[in-house]
């Protein structure tokens, strides 16, 4: 049965006021700024998309006969950079999304956890488990068996 998304109201709406206040302030600013009443607009007859293309690769040489629109800045550097960004994003997303087959350790210092069962007294869990504020005894649940734990007091 579909559970239609219900708007969970209640105390969580209070912060919304901040957004409205921000909008009010920004609107005041806009009303106060003296915009020129008409737009400069683009010269007719030049296809904007081709201009975007030339600006993208800074091809002033291939510009069409009637010259470019305004003084658009070259974006070649941005283009190269965004390529690297997308590659990085892909790589990062894959790392996060990929499901490890059983037994592949993803915990830090995992070699240490296996190798030194002997370190009593201190939680040999992966070092950076955000061990919860309620500091139980030393044998706090190791992060690796996440199944049981329900996480922080929700």
């Amino acid at each position, binding site marked *: 049965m579909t559970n239609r998304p219900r708007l969970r109201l209640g105390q*969580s709406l209070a912060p919304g006021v901040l957004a409205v206040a921000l*909008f009010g302030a920004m609107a005041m600013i806009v*009303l106060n700024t003296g*915009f020129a009443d*008409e737009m400069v*607009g*683009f010269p007719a007859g030049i296809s904007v998309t081709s201009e975007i293309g030339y*600006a993208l690769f800074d091809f002033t040489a291939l510009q069409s006969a009637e010259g470019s629109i*305004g003084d658009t800045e070259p974006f070649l550097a941005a283009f190269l950079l965004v390529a690297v960004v997308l590659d990085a994003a892909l790589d990062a*997303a894959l790392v996060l999304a990929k499901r490890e087959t059983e037994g592949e350790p993803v915990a830090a210092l995992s070699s240490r956890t296996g190798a030194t069962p002997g370190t009593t007294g201190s939680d040999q869990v992966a070092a950076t488990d955000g061990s919860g504020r309620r500091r139980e005894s030393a044998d706090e649940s190791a992060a690796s068996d996440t199944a049981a734990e329900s996480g922080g007091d929700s």
Partner: protein
Amino acid sequence: MDVPIEYFVLLSMALFSIGLFGILTRRNALLFLMSVEIMVNAANVNLIAFAFYHGNLTGQVFALFAMALAAAEVAIGLGIVLVLYRNFRDVDVTVPTTMRW
């Protein structure tokens, strides 16, 4: 007769505030991502409007780049939500408070 620029700016500010409202009130991580998307698009509206206002294409080309980066961001966002779900069995952003003070 073109539409005066104030309307475009007000529209974009409204969109921006709606996105912000979404972030502040909803507790679902995916909705958080959607709200951020709205805020980015608000910025794009602004860019396009001002591009036309100033008569140069910088704004438009940059809007393209903004969209690309928004997409990259969402990709990683979804990755993070996936890992969140695997660990906390829930996508509610207010659940993980193991580290505070």
